[in-house]
């Protein structure tokens, strides 16, 4: 797919994706709001600038792989795939409904463009590792990206993967940490503290880059080939605001796992529309 370099255009796409997330979740009547809104900028960057991929040919052998480990934030992945042209945007309104390709948690076999099935937390990073390992065995240049969340780092399987990836120096793998400081039962540092997460990854021999995960310029820089270190896997810690763009959802863990009501959706869309105009006017950030 042709890469978009203009950050203003990318920000507008992220805004559109956020609006689509709100609409599809409201129509679905269940699902997760905060995580998807927080990760809209990162997914926009990946699918519209960073990754090699072809929406018209999802199985293209030279594509980069995106593994969503924290599967519950799939509304953002679905909205991104639709906006990139993998399937009609109208289909976003079928989210979580009987017969839909947009399952409540992503199912690979249901929808072309998905690289794996996820939802049960903790197992995506290992799968990304297996992909990166296998690609390297065959000297294929494809990169593997894996989005993993902070709450998910409570899982032992994640740390097993962290050891394995460092041992094998999988520098064709870039992990991104959805660091939004919330999970279901509360703030991450109350439920199960993860900080200092940067130091943890450094100690595990990873190349660690910490960024504002809602800042398009910082995201693009962190994910660019220039930031890759030979022999080291990369962890991009993307600090971000859960619920980003919708004031009453921002930084509130209670918005982890529920959709807006019709009324709340209208307010949310109006706020996102306000931000869209700001981006158009070049006033945002």
């Amino acid at each position: 797919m042709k890469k978009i370099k203009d950050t203003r255009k990318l920000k507008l796409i992220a805004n559109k994706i956020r609006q689509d997330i709100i609409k599809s979740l409201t129509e679905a009547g269940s699902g997760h709001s905060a995580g998807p809104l927080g990760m809209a900028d990162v997914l926009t960057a990946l699918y519209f600038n960073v990754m090699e991929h072809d929406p018209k040919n999802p199985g293209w052998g030279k594509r980069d792989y995106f593994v969503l480990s924290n599967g519950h934030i799939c509304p953002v992945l679905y909205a991104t795939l639709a906006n990139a042209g993998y399937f009609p945007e109208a289909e976003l309104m079928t989210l979580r409904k009987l017969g839909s390709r947009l399952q409540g948690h992503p199912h690979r076999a249901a929808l072309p463009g998905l690289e794996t099935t996820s939802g049960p937390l903790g197992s995506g990073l290992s799968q990304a590792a297996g992909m990166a390992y296998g690609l390297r065995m065959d000297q294929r240049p494809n990169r593997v990206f894996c989005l993993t969340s902070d709450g998910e780092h409570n899982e032992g399987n994640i740390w097993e993967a962290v050891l394995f990836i460092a041992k094998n120096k999988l520098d064709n793998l870039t992990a991104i940490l959805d660091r939004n400081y919330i999970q279901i039962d509360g703030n991450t540092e109350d439920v199960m503290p993860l900080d200092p997460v940067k130091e943890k990854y450094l100690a595990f021999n990873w190349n660690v880059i910490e960024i504002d995960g809602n800042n398009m310029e910082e995201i693009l820089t962190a994910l660019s080939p220039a930031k890759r270190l030979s022999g080291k896997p990369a962890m991009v810690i993307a600090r971000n605001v859960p619920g980003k763009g919708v004031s009453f959802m921002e930084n509130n863990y209670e918005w982890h796992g529920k959709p807006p009501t019709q009324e709340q959706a209208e307010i949310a869309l109006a706020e996102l529309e306000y931000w869209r105009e700001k981006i158009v006017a070049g006033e945002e950030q």
Partner: protein
Amino acid sequence: MTNKKMYLIDDLYGENIKQAPTRDGYGNGLVALGEADRNVVVLCADLTDSTRSKYFADKFPDRFIEIGVAEQNMVTVASGLAAVGKIPFVASYATFCPGRCWEQIRTTICYNDRNVKIAGAHAGISVGPDGATHQALEDIALMRALPNMVVVVPCDANEAKKATIAVGKIKKPAYVRFTREKTPLFTTEKTPFQLGKAEVYRDGKDVTIIACGSLVYQALLAAKELEKDGVEATVINCHTIKPLDGKTIMKAVRQTGAVVTVEEHQITGGLGGAVAEYLSENYPVPLKRVGVQDRFGESGAPDELLKKFGLTYTDIMESVKNALRLKNER
């Protein structure tokens, strides 16, 4: 009568029958697969020697991946390898894999439809002195409940090699179960083996004994002894538990009208469970299950344990008599 078309060894009941652990068959099967297909890769979780993954690791070090003691990581890394075209085989003790990583197998391999093969070593009570923690008695149940999973329990090291090669050639998740101890090598190169096809090793008209794993041999011993009492038993090697070969089972059971299942596993959820489910829906007949009776194992010598837990040929004979009593009371 022993079925000649099965090409079992000539001196089937001889004193000096050769023995080997079925895990050897896994190792040999891996090497054969590795020679034939460069996409075959082998993963192990710090049990490379005892699972016989070592046979492959020594020959193809570039295609062997040491995972360390991390079974959840092993199966999920395997899922990722399969995603890019590899054919991964993973091995640990069955209590740990699939025991510890069942959900990862369910989601990232079965539901995700990834071509990963799982070898559960040291299954059954015959693991011996290591005790109950290391004696997998529930693994067939765990794997059999999963959609999309093939489940195979080979009866000796020769069949184990064939089973390993066979699962490597299908594009589906599969679980193959192996034992630690040496058991009789009673099948030969020529003995037929086809995934999903149960084989009738012995024909009889009174009762059908359906067995899997190394206890198939005990079932044959039981049938031989029963003959002396005038009981003619059919013995079926039901190596593939999923998909179950209902046709072969049905054909035999229609002739005999009574069934005994035999396995080194809990009586719930394994071969006995599968056969009971199938027959009660299609052709209900008296059925007895030889297996571990809803309890955990313990330390001991393998033969002592098989005796204590009721898994020898004399226990099978006992169950046959009970099944026949039920049949005659009808």
